[in-house]
C-alpha cells in the first residue's frame, strides 16, 4: 500500500514583484514530505526555504504549481477552506514562540482545539504534557516562563491537535543552545515515538542533524538532499553550496 505523503509540492513557482525588481523565490520546486518523518529544509539566505514552507502551509499563495497537505489540494482554497485546513491538518511552531500573553500555558496548548470546538483527547493531552515536561508551570502565563519553556509550550500546542504535518520555522533561532537541544530532542521524539510528521526550516546544521532527511535549496530550486544527516555532513554540503553561490 502506497501512502500519500503528508505534504507535497508539484512544480511550484513563486515570484515577487514585477519587471526589473522581479525576484523568483521558487522556480519549479517539486518535493514530497513523507508521513512520520522529520524533514529539514536548509539553504543560504534568500534561497527560498521560508517561502517554500509558507507555500506548503497555505500561508502564502503560489504563482504556478500545486500544493497538497495529505489528500487536500491547498492551492485554490479560499480563506474559509484555508482556515479549516490550518485548524485541522497543520500545526505551526514559530521562531518567536507566538503565545497569547493573556492565556496560561495549558490554555495556550489547547487553544487550537478550543478554536475548532473540539475536546482534547485526554490520554494524548497527558502524553503531550508529560513529554513537554512543564510540570507545575502549566498554569503560568507566558511572561512567567523562560524562552525554552515558552517554545516547548508552542511545540505542545502544535502537537496536541495531531495535525498531518507540523511546520517549524527556525524553532531554535531565539533559544540558547541548551534550550534549543531540548526542543530539538522533543521534536525528534514526537516523530519517532508518535509518528508525527515535521517539516522544519533552519539554517543551523546542528538543528538539521536531528532530522531524518535534509533538503537543500539554492536560488529557488532543490539542489540536493541527505538522508540520516549528521552536523558535519550538513555543514559540508552547506559550504559547497556557498562556494557555488
Amino acid at each position, binding site marked *: 500500500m502506497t501512502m500519500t505523503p503528508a505534504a507535497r509540492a508539484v512544480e511550484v513557482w513563486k515570484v515577487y514583484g514585477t519587471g526589473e525588481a522581479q525576484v523568483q523565490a521558487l522556480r519549479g520546486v517539486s518535493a514530497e514530505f513523507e508521513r512520520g518523518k522529520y524533514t529539514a529544509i536548509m539553504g543560504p539566505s534568500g534561497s527560498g526555504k521560508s517561502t517554500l514552507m509558507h507555500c506548503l502551509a497555505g*500561508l502564502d499563495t503560489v504563482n504556478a504549481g500545486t500544493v497538497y497537505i495529505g489528500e487536500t489540494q491547498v492551492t485554490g482554497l479560499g480563506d*474559509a477552506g484555508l*482556515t479549516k485546513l*490550518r*485548524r485541522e491538518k497543520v500545526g505551526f511552531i514559530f521562531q*518567536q514562540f*507566538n503565545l497569547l500573553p*493573556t492565556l496560561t500555558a495549558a490554555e495556550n496548548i489547547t*487553544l487550537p482545539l478550543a*478554536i475548532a470546538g473540539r475536546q482534547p483527547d485526554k490520554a494524548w493531552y497527558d502524553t503531550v504534557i508529560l513529554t513537554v515536561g512543564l510540570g507545575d508551570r502549566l498554569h503560568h502565563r507566558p511572561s512567567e516562563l523562560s524562552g525554552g519553556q515558552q517554545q516547548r509550550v508552542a511545540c505542545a500546542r502544535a502537537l496536541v491537535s495531531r495535525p498531518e504535518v507540523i511546520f517549524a520555522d527556525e524553532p531554535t533561532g531565539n533559544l540558547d543552545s541548551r534550550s534549543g537541544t531540548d526542543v530539538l530532542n522533543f521534536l525528534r521524539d514526537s516523530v519517532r515515538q508518535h509518528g508525527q510528521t515535521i517539516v522544519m526550516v533552519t539554517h543551523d546544521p546542528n538543528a538539521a542533524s536531528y532530522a531524518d532527511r535534509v533538503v537543500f535549496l539554492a536560488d529557488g530550486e532543490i539542489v540536493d538532499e541527505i538522508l540520516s544527516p549528521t552536523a558535519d555532513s550538513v555543514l559540508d554540503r552547506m559550504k559547497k553550496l556557498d562556494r557555488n553561490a
Partner: protein
Amino acid sequence: MLRATLKSLLARKLRLILSGLAVLLGVMFVSGSFVLTDSLGRSFDNMFANSLSGTDVIVTADPAINVSEMEGEPVPGMLTSADLAAVRETTGVAQAIGDVQADGARVIGANGKVVATFGPPRFGGNWTGEVGGRELREGVAPSAANEIVVNAALAKKAGIKVGDQVGVLTTQPKQTFKLVGIFGYEGRLDSRGPVTEVLFTEPVAQKLMLGKEGKFTSISVTTAGGSDPVAVRDALKTKLGKGYVVQTGSEAAAAIASGFKEALDVFNKILLGFAGVALFVGIFLILNTFSIIVAQRTKELALSRALGASRGQMIGSVLVEAVVIGLIASVLGLAAGYGVGALLSQLFASFSEVQLAGVGLPLAAVISAFAVGLIVTIIAAIMPAIRASRVPPVAALQEVATPDRPLTKLTVSGAIITAIGSGLIAFGIAENVWLMFAGVLTAFIGVALLSAFLARPAVSVLGRVFSWSVPGKLGRLNSGRNPRRTAITAAALMVGIALVTGVNTIVTSAEKSLRGSVAEEFHAELIVSGQGSPGLQPTFDGTLLPRMKQVPGVTAVSAEYGDQAMIDGKPGWVSVNTDFPAAVKMFSLSPVAGSLAQPGPDEVIVDDDSGHHLSDVISVQHANGLQKTYTVTGVYKQGEIYGGMVFGSGAIEGMRQQLPSMAFVDLSDNANEAAARKSLEALLVDSPEMLVQNADEYLDAQSAETAQFLLMIQVLLGLAILIAVLGVVNTLALSVLERTRELGLLRAIGLGRMATMRMITVEAMVITVFGAALGLAVGVGLGTAVVRGLADEGLKEVVLPWEQMGIYLVLGAVVGVIAAILPAIRAARTNVLAAISYE
C-alpha cells in the same frame, strides 16, 4: 525637532484623525451655538425695528409687576384716556395713537381647537390703522363691536376666512366675532415671528384684553415735521412725570430686543453647557490617544534622548503635536459649526416664521472655537507629554515591555478626587448650583481615575457573559489587558450616561413622590384644567360653576382663580378658591391656627410656611393695578401638593383674567364617573382648552411634558456619547494594530474571520458595557444626592428609573458592537504571513 515631530504626526494619521474628530465635534457644537444665537438675535432685532419703524416716540406706564425672566412674566402697567389726551397736547406731537396689546387672545380654529403657539404670545389688541408696517390684505378694518381682523398666518393656521364667525377666548369666556379682514406686514410677511394677533375695535379690545374701557398699554407718537424725536421724548417726560416710560422708537425696539436677547443668551448658555460636556469627554479620548502613542514610541523617544534631546524638547514635541491637531480640528470644527448653525437658523426661522436676517460668523464663535480647540487638546496632552520626557535614554537599548505600573497611586488620588467632588455636590445642592456642577465634573474625573482599579474585576465579571465561546473569552481577556486604557475609554462613555441617568433619577423620583402625595392626599375624582402656556393660563367661564355642581353625582366643585401680584412688595401668586372648605377635604388640609372656613372678600388663608400669622394684614398690588389689603383669618399646614395663599373673592377683581383656570370635582361614592365626566365636558364645550381628567390622567399629561424635557437632554448629550464611541473605535483600532502578531498567530492556528471579528466585538462590548454600568452607578449616585438634597421640596424617596437604566445598558452593548465594526473588519483582514513576521 519640529520637522521630526511633524513627520511622526503624519505617520499616525488614523489615530490622530479620530482624536481630532472629537475636538472637531466639540468645537462644532460651540461655534454652532454662537452662530445660531447670533443670527436669531439679529433677526429679532430687525423684526422689532420694523414693527416700530413708523413710531417716533412711545409712551408706556411703569410695569405693574416687575419681575425678571427667571421669576415669571412682567406685567405691564396701563395708561388711561387722560394720559392720551395729555400726550396729544404736548408740543411736537403730530399724532398719538393709544394702543391696546395683551397676551391671551385665543382663536378657536375651524377644527374646534384653540390655535396654539409653543409659548410666544397670542396678542389681542385694537386696530389702529395701517401703521407700524401693518397692511390690510383682504376685507376691511373692524368697525363694529362684533368684528375682528387677524394676521394672515393666524388665519391660515386656524383655517378661517373673511366672513366666517370665529370664536375667541380672552379674559372673558368665548365670544363669537365676524372675521372682516386679514392683514399682513410690510415685506409680504404673514406674521412677525411666531406671535399671533387678533385685533378688535378699540372699546372691545380694552374690555376683553385689559378688563376695562378707557385703558391703553402704550401710546405711539408721530412727531410733527421737523421735530426731533429726542426733544419730543424729553418734553413728554417732563409733562407726564413719574410712573411713565418714554422712549424713542429705536430705544423701544432695542429694549424689546434686549429682552429677547437675554432669553437667547440663556439658550446659548444651555447649548454651551452641553458642548462643554462633549468637550470634557473629548479630553478623555485625546488623553488616551496621546498616552498610547507615547507608550508605543518609547523606543523612539528614548533614542531621541540618547541622541541628546532635552526633557523640554520631549515635552515640546508632544505638545506641538497637540497644537497642530487642535488647530486643524478648530478650523474644521468652526467651518462645520458655521454650517450647522446656519442650518439650524434656517430650520428655526421657518418653524417660527421669523424673517432670517442672514447668517453671520460672530467673533465670539471664532475666538471660542480656537480657544476651546487648543485648550482642550493641550490639557489632554500635558500628562502624556510629561511621561514622554521621563523615558530614560537607556530604554532605547533594552527590550521594553512597557511594564504594568501599579495602580495604587491612581486609585488613591481617584478616591480623594471623588470624595472632594462628592463633598462639593453635597455642599452645592444647598448653597450654589455652580459649586454643584464643579463637584459633578470633579467627581467624574475622580471616578475616571478609580475606574482603572475597577476595570479588572468589572471586566472579568462582565466578560463571563461572553465567555461561552473561544473568541468571546479571548476578547474578554484582551479587554482586561490594559486596565488604564480600558478604564479611560469606558470613563468617556460613563460621563454621558451618568448625566442622563442622574437627570432621569431626579425626574422619576420627583414624579413618584408627586404621585405618592396625590394618592395620599388628593381625594377628589376629577380635575378640570388646561395645558398652560408661560404667559397666561387657559380659563373657563366661571358662571358654569353652579351648573357643574348640579351634574348628577357631583358633591363639590372647588375652582381656582389665579394671577401674579406683588404681595407685600414682593412678586408672588394670588389665588382664589370658590369653595375652600371643599378643598380642605379634597387635599386633606389641617388647620394650624384660626379657621379654614371660606375666607371673606378681604380675608386670606395662608399656609404655615408663608411666614404670615393669624390677623396679619397683607397688602397686595394686583396685576391690573388694583391695590388692596387682606387680613389673615386662618393658617393651614402646607400639604405636599397644596399650598400658598388662598384669598377671598375680593381678589378676583384684581386679576387680568377674572375666570377660573382649574377646578377640582368631588363625586359621591356611588356616582358614575364616566357619565359625570361627559356632562362636565358638555358644559365646557365653549372652552376647548379645558380637559376633564382624573388624577392619573392629569399626572400622565404632566409626565408627558417631563418626558419631552428628558428626550431633549438625551439628544443634547448624544454628542458626548458619540465622542465616547469614537474613543472606543480608537482604542480598538490601536489594540488591533498592537496585536497584529497575535492576530496572525490566531489565524494561523485556525481562527476564522468571523470568529476574529467576534473576538474584537466582545472586547468592544466589554468596554462599553463597563462604561455604561459605571455611568449608571455614578448617575444613580448623582441623582440620589440631588433627590436627598431636595428632600425639603417634597422629594420623599429615591426612585430609580430601572427601565431607562436597562435601556442605557443595552445601548452600551449596542454602541460597542457599532464601535467594533471597523476595527473588527481590519482585524479579520490581517494577512497571516505578514502578521507573523511583523515586528
